[in-house]
């Protein structure tokens, strides 16, 4: 420890690895460098709402398979629900390239745990905590990962559901929805779930999800009627193949 440094309070200049064990040789950036500085971006290719709820066996998440390029429905086979380990799923909305980077970070963390091989595995609450630290750290550098994540999982005998976004805002709840879902789906989810987390059956949960996805397809102009549903219980993660819900458009046809 550097007790007498006159640089106390300023960033230290030592080049070591994360744990201060090894010296790392990185070319330091000089004051006069002309490299561009990354600043707040705008999201380019984006995903819309993610919705999630807790029910008696665990948690369920859903997200459609669309990645929009502004108003263009550009990529229609994107999987926005991503399993991390055996008992956690991340649902991502917002910038897809930032989501891909996050997926890489989480994979790296899981691989590190795997190789340590000491019987400890990162569960949903730990991934939630880690993600929130990453997101808040990026926000504090004014270079956010432009996403809103839902972390759903099963840990220590009960379901886990959390929200982390580009500002580093976090919260846990028995129902969560990002994007347009926060306005359109959350009221529906809350009505179904709140107070009944432990008695809500799988069928009722699926019903709630499908109602919300239907409403979102009707009203969110950047949504798609092709989505996936993830279920996480004591038995692990199950993500469905993409499917659609029936919608009624006849009122708009002809005279």
């Amino acid at each position, binding site marked *: 420890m550097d007790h007498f440094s006159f640089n106390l309070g300023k960033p230290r200049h030592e080049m070591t690895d994360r744990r201060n064990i090894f010296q790392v040789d990185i070319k330091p950036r000089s004051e006069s460098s002309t490299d561009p500085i990354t600043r707040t971006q705008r999201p380019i290719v984006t995903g819309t709402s993610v919705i999630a709820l807790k029910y008696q066996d665990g948690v369920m998440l859903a997200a459609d398979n669309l990645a929009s390029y502004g108003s263009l429905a550009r990529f229609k086979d994107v999987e926005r629900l991503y399993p991390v380990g055996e008992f956690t799923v991340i649902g991502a909305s917002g910038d897809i390239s930032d989501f891909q980077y996050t997926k890489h970070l989480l994979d790296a963390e899981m691989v590190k745990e795997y190789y340590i091989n000491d019987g*400890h595995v990162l569960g949903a609450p*730990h991934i939630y905590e880690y993600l929130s*630290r990453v997101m808040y750290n990026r926000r504090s550098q004014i270079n956010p990962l432009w996403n809103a994540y839902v972390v759903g999982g099963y840990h220590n005998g009960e379901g886990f559901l959390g929200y982390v976004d580009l500002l580093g805002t976090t919260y846990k709840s028995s129902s969560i929805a990002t994007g347009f879902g926060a306005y359109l789906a959350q009221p529906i989810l809350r009505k179904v779930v709140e107070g009944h987390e432990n008695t809500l059956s799988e069928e009722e949960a699926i019903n709630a999800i499908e109602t919300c996805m239907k409403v979102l397809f009707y009203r969110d102009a950047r949504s798609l009627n092709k989505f996936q549903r993830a279920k996480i219980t004591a038995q692990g993660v199950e993500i469905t193949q993409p499917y659609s819900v029936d919608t009624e458009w006849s009122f708009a046809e002809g005279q």
Partner: protein
Amino acid sequence: MFRNQYDNDISTWSPQGRIHQVEYALEAVKQGSAAVGLRSNTHVVLLALKRSSGELASYQKKLTIIDDHLGIAIAGLTSDARVLSNFMRTEAMKSKVIYGRPLPIFRIVSAIGDKAQVNTQNYGRRPYGVGLLVAGYDETGPHLYECAPSGNFFEYYAMSIGARSQSAKTYLERYYESFAEASLDELVRHGLNALRDTLQQDKELNMDNCSIGIVGADCKFKIVEGDELKRYLSLLDNVEMGDTVQGQAPMDTE
């Protein structure tokens, strides 16, 4: 020890395939006063003999709390021990802050091993002169590890380090099979018996020179010292050493 031409620096092998500087560092641990550790299925207990440099001086602390679930006993250079325990505390804090979980014991012990090994291979550095007994309780249960200046670490049911620790090991080897199911008091009793065996001829365990650390499933790491030791010292087997092991000097002369 040996004065030969292969022991001047850390990056010199001897023809026998030894690095003498590392072995000299291990000597520093053996010169420190004894520390004993043992574990059951529910608790890990550390016991240490504190030394004082004279009657006017205080007794050197041997146990350090790293986190609620993790503590260490040291033998050797206390200043090196401080550096390592600060490192462990930082890692423990990082685990809580980044992942929201208590630091798993195996990985902090292997991090210390990695740190210690660096000093055995780079020219101009010296090995840490302290051995640690690391006691902790994590999701996979109670653990006791020994960390050495060589960078080696190993898990044990029971272990002792420091001066005359072989006597304690002999005791532990005799009774270790009963540790797994032992109650906390039983475990402490065995530990104190083992620690007593490391004492010199006319010395005794008392409230000043003894220190106990306990961690377990429902028990945050706590250090028991001073008056609170009375209860544990009374658990000691009454042996030929007389009644001085009761913890308090007898008031009347009989």
